[in-house]
């Protein structure tokens, strides 16, 4: 091999140096580029972190607001039935129809509004149409009972056509078409419900109370009917066939007997009505509100019937002696009864504190024994008798709130029991680090039982677990 010349060696040396340093320079440049890219990504992440921090800073306020909304939610929707309660709707209508006297001939769901596509909202209307028969007063009491029902039912439209012929009981009833709407809501307020730590403590915070004071609970309006004693049914026609009176102005023996029978009938009915009014007063003094309502209804029906018969008798009784008896034994006492009935009807029977406490004690017993159906029925009866807790003495109103609370807690516990929670194992630790296996999952204190975070494990004892949901604590034994 020939030796390289000096020049060649020089060139070689320089080339090697340039190649090596050039290669290293490229690597440095590549790394610097990567560093720039990484710094760009870090900057973008920091911007996103700043945005996330702004959201996180709002958590305390949002927690207070969410807590306020959750606390008030049950009261806000108090007059809306849940989906599961819609089946009660028809039972309610039937009950009010029976109490008022109207006869339901047809009920069908309404197609109104189905043609238009409606936006999905949390509240869904459920329309119904009905065909009824009843007097004006019966229909009025029916729709009043519906509108005063503790769950909202709107009377949307109706039409009354005057009846043509009286029914077998002598009452002239009219054909009525009625359209109603009730509303229902879904309990699930959002797809994800966040579990809030230290919920009970935060619930007492001033900000929560501030939010609660800002939220106005919508009240459902109700109406108390006026006294309608002696009020004429305007749909009853006054056109009648004229009464044929004998030529000798009713002095014939047969006609006299008829008039006497008519008069005696009125006297007997007047006696029955007087006794009914005495009994009504007794029931009022005894504060037996349930039977009092029935008696009032009976007395009013008898009063109306008597008023009509007296009107006919005035025209038909022609014998002067019988007319005098009519005045003394029927008309004058009837006027006195009219004033008496007006006075009693205006009086407002109220439940006393003793009565409300008796109801509360009975409901508390059902609650303690877990008799949820009886509890619901008892609360419903109490609300009907006391007109949703309005017709009670002032010093009993606090107990009405306690009855509502019993009902709410009962519903919460009943819903919890439907979940079939099973506690298979408890690893108890006195320092608060206990763990329990519940429905196959290992949970500790403050963990949520359900994905929505509505049911929290509040405490784990040696052989029990206390759950907390919607402000109610439920203790469940192991097993």
């Amino acid at each position, binding site marked *: 091999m020939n030796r390289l010349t000096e020049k060649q060696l*020089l060139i070689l040396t320089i080339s090697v*140096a340039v190649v090596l340093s050039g290669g290293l*320079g490229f690597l440095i440049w590549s790394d610097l580029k990567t560093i720039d890219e990484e710094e760009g990504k870090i900057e973008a*992440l920091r911007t996103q972190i700043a945005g996330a921090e702004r959201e996180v800073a*709002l958590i305390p306020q949002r927690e207070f607001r969410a807590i306020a909304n959750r606390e008030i939610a049950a009261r806000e929707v108090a007059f809306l039935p849940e989906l599961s309660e819609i089946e009660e709707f028809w039972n309610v209508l039937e009950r009010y129809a029976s109490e008022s006297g109207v006869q339901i001939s047809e009920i069908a769901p309404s197609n109104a509004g189905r043609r238009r596509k409606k936006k999905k909202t949390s509240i869904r209307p459920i329309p119904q149409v009905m065909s009824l028969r009843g007097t004006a007063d019966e229909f009025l009491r029916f729709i009043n009972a519906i509108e005063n029902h503790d769950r909202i039912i709107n009377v949307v439209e109706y039409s009354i056509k005057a009846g043509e012929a009286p029914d077998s009981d002598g009452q002239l009833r009219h054909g009525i078409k009625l359209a109603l709407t009730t509303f229902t809501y879904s309990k699930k307020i959002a797809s994800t419900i966040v579990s809030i730590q230290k919920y009970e403590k935060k619930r007492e915070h001033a900000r929560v109370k501030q939010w609660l004071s800002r939220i106005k609970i919508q009240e459902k309006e109700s109406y108390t009917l006026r006294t309608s004693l002696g009020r004429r049914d305007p749909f009853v026609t006054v056109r009648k066939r004229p009464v044929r009176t004998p030529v000798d102005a009713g002095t014939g023996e047969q006609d006299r007997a008829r008039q006497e029978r008519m008069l005696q009938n009125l006297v007997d009915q007047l006696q029955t009505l007087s006794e009914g009014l005495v009994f009504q007063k007794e029931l009022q003094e005894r504060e037996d509100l349930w039977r009092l309502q029935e008696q009032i209804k009976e007395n009013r029906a008898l009063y109306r019937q008597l008023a009509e018969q007296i009107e006919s008798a005035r025209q038909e009784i022609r014998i002067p002696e019988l007319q005098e008896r009519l005045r003394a034994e029927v008309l004058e006492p009837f006027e006195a009864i009219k004033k008496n009935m007006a006075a009693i009807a205006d009086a407002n029977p109220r439940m006393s504190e003793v009565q409300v406490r008796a109801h509360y004690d009975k409901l508390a017993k059902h609650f303690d024994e877990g008799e949820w159906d009886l509890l619901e029925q008892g609360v419903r009866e109490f609300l009907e008798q006391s007109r949703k807790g309005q017709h009670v003495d002032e010093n009993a109103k606090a107990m009405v709130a306690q009855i509502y609370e019993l009902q709410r807690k009962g519903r919460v516990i009943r819903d919890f029991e439907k979940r079939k929670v099973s506690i298979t194992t408890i690893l108890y630790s006195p320092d608060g680090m206990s763990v329990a296996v519940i429905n196959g999952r290992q949970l500790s204190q403050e963990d949520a039982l359900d994905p929505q975070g509505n049911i929290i494990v509040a405490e784990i004892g040696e052989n029990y677990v206390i759950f907390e949901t919607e402000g109610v604590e439920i203790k469940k034994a192991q097993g």
Partner: protein
Amino acid sequence: MIQINLLPPEYRKAESTPIARFVAIIAGAVLVTSALVAYGYVHYNELRGVREVRGATEAEFTNKKLQADISKSLQTEINAYEARRKAITKVASSRVLQSRKLDELLDVFHNGGDKSAYFVWLKSLSVKPPRASRRGKQTTGGTISFGGFSETIEFSRITNLREAVQKDTFYEDMQGISSPVFKAHFWDDDKLPRSAGKFSFDLTLKPLGWRRSNKKKK
């Protein structure tokens, strides 16, 4: 002069590296070494450092995002409650207590039993809701229509009825009442009375929730 070195090679003086080559080698060595050092610094110090910072920032972001999602879920829940509240308000305020209106109207027809001003009996009564409006607010709260007969064929009785309706508390919820439609009517049967004044009226209700709007204005 020609110089010949007669010393054996092992005794000869070693030849020194040429200056140019020497300088080239030194410069090349310095350059390569500097480049190596620089590369080592950039790659193992700077780049690694930046990657570690990015990793930490990503972890921080993941954590913050979880909390931010919680915050957004809370706001979604609050919005859902607000929307339900609005819907409930709308349901409650778009309600006419029909039992109250009917109770008031029946009292007007009865007039305390006084037949001197007017005495009527009805053939029909109908209450209809307002038509759903696609744009803007509803202009009425529905209609109440009734028709029947007046005891006599005197038109003044019907105007008396109309006045009584307008003066009663029943009319507070009304926007207007139609002019009376009236006609003398005769029957050809054996019932009494044989003639009466046939009439009908239409009333328009104020838009639903007008009482609430009035309270807000006050």
